[in-house]
């Protein structure tokens, strides 16, 4: 009797496990449909249906309504599944589970490689996306294509600029820095004038660090298919760490994480005096730091060599169509609508920073005054920055993971005597180990 019970239990367990196995087996085989031509897309728009979009970009709301007005049979559902990493985690899990993935997903440029290499997003060239090759600005377009495949369409971009609290600088009689050496001087002067004031905040941010290394001429990542090089020992990286180490050693940066409550407070009360960040920042300042309206101004990013005019990208997103999407033609139609032509212009009017050349060069865009910046025509500075972005930058095909261990490794430089250069070396080692583990050829 006992053995029979045991056998039955085992049997039941086997059935249950088998069910679990089948479930996973079903999950891994994602249907692989070829892209439709313009006719298929038109037919899909005629037929109508529902498009689920995972995005956090605020200007999409208005344009999604425009899209629904133009194609009344299509229902667009905008879902905020989290910002950045949180959304990618949810997206990866939905793709792995084989159900629940959206039809369109917002993916930042640095994260796109991870989805492209896993072949979890559609190649949009089969839908006719290659015709937009010349309508987007160079940086964002390079970020979404590799050779012939087009993994997504650029939605916005983030050429970097220097945002500073003019009130604070004027009060203490300090000049706006044009080089990073002057920046360090300004940091010392501000902190000396009022110990509560810090030039900026930093608790170790992978995105900001890589962007500044990018501007300094460092190219730590080289990605060529599945061959990857990680090297934080190049000259550009050394230029960056030499300067940033001074700020850390002298405790000139506020130990406040970006996007935290303390961060918004610091931006509002002047204790965080500057930000070197992407051109998408104005919308966030206007909504998140409304009380400091009029205090802030925009200037070009400080330079590593005096008189140079080099910039870098920080953030910026694209819209991708996951392979798991149930209605890819419709998904592509929506993506195309909001990233190109009138849809893109409408989003720029709402405050997005354009990735389309036409919008970037239009007088309406360039001459728009920003009441938040005291009427300054800030877009001229952003557009100038977009033209000066350093070329040939690559992210890792698994940058999302690499960024998640930045604080484990490089973060040590912020809370212990570890040097930033050693921290970046540890980050490099962790990235190399993971890359090898995942089947990439990683040679340093």
């Amino acid at each position: 009797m006992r053995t029979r019970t045991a056998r039955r239990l085992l049997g039941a367990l086997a059935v249950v496990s088998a069910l679990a196995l089948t479930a996973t087996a079903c999950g891994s085989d994602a249907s692989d449909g070829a892209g439709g031509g313009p006719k298929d897309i038109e037919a899909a728009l005629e037929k109508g249906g529902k498009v689920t979009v995972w995005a956090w970009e605020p200007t999409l709301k208005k344009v999604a309504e425009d899209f629904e007005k133009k194609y009344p049979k299509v229902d667009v559902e905008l879902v905020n599944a989290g910002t950045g990493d949180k959304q990618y985690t949810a997206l990866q899990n939905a793709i792995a589970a084989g159900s629940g993935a959206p039809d369109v997903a917002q993916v930042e440029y640095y994260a796109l490689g991870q989805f492209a290499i896993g072949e979890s997003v559609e190649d949009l060239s089969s839908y006719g996306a290659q015709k937009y090759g010349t309508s987007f600005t160079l940086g964002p377009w390079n970020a979404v294509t590799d050779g012939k495949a087009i993994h997504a369409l650029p939605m916005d971009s983030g050429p970097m600029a220097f945002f500073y609290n003019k009130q604070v600088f004027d009060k203490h009689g300090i000049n706006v820095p044009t080089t990073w050496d002057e920046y360090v001087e300004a940091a010392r002067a501000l902190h000396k004038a009022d110990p509560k004031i810090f030039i900026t905040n930093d608790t170790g941010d992978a995105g900001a660090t890589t962007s500044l290394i990018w501007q300094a001429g460092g190219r730590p990542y080289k990605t060529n298919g599945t061959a990857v090089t990680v090297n934080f020992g190049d000259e550009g990286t050394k230029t960056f760490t030499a300067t940033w180490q001074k700020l850390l050693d002298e405790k000139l940066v506020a130990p406040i994480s970006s996007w935290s409550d303390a961060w918004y407070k610091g931006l509002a009360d002047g204790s965080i005096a500057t930000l070197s960040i992407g051109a998408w920042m104005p919308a966030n300042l206007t909504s998140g730091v409304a009380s400091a309206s009029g205090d802030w101004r925009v200037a070009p990013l400080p330079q590593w060599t005096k008189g140079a005019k080099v910039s870098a990208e920080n953030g910026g997103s694209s819209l991708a169509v996951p392979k798991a999407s149930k209605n890819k033609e419709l998904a592509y139609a929506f993506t195309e609508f909001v990233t190109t032509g009138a849809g893109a212009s409408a989003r720029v009017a709402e405050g997005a920073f354009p990735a389309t050349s036409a919008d970037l060069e239009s007088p309406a865009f360039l001459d728009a005054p920003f009441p938040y910046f005291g009427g300054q025509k800030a877009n001229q500075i952003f557009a100038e920055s977009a033209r000066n972005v350093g070329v040939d930058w690559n992210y890792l095909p698994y940058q999302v993971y690499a960024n998640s261990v930045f604080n484990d490794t490089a973060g040590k430089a912020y809370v212990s005597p570890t040097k930033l250069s050693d921290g970046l070396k540890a980050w490099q080692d962790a990235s190399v180990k993971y890359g090898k583990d995942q089947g990439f050829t990683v040679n340093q």
Partner: protein
Amino acid sequence: MTLLSTSAQAAPPPRRRARSRLRTEAWAGWGFAGPFVAVFGLVFLAPIGYALYLSLFKDRLIGGTSFVGLDNYGEALTDPRFWDGLARVGLFLLVQVPVMLGIALLVALAIDSGRLYGKSFFRVAVFLPYAVPAVVASLIWGFIYGTRFGLVGNINDAFGVTLPDPLSPSLVLASIGNIVTWEFVGYNMLIFYSALKVVPRSLYEAAAIDGAGEWRIVTSVKLPAIRSALVIATIFSIIGSFQLFNEPSILQKLAPNAITSDFTPNLYTYSLSFAGQQHNYAATVAIVMGVITAIIAYTVQLRGMRKG
């Protein structure tokens, strides 16, 4: 002949009936046990089976899924990130659990002594933190610990002092220990107190007549009487320490460089799975951790329950 044949013919039916009754009874038994077995299999055995199954494979960004046998286990057993996390929760266990159980025992004895004024208020007040969800408790304490906008920062500003930063790498484990102690003293106190309640009062009287003082009654009567409750609370606390996750996970946002993604084994499993997409390896680490926890908890139980 007729008789014989009748009996010979009649004999089998009762036997068959008996067997079928036995079978019906067996099925009736399954009828009662079935719902439990089904749920048990589905929510308890199946996940473990699935985790074991997952741990034998490896899914890579390049190359897809392949069977790797016990390779993942070999990797986990030599993974410094795993062992560092385990050492950290081990240290946490050795310091925090005795402190917490000691306080809980003291409070339980005080309430049980009957000499406390307002004892039901005291009992509820000590128990109340347990009713606060761990996530909320961590957030509350995170605000208290903050050196810029938190209570620690306010004290620094008000008195012009510089208190050590509770969220610095050297103190953050102690700060987490403080949160966990605050949360669970009341819970353990309640276990001890209810065990004390069932000790017959006559034993105390007998001990008092024999000339035992209060302290002697505590050590010779009360503590031996609640021994099994002490063991149970210890085992729960050991398991809780090994599964430390909520508190470090919440505080990580405030102290990203002090609490690494492999701070505790559970946090490590979480980051492996959700940030690195290494589900197979995460399953392996989870199983190794489960086995280690089971061994330690079982050892404590064996030692604790031994008489004499």
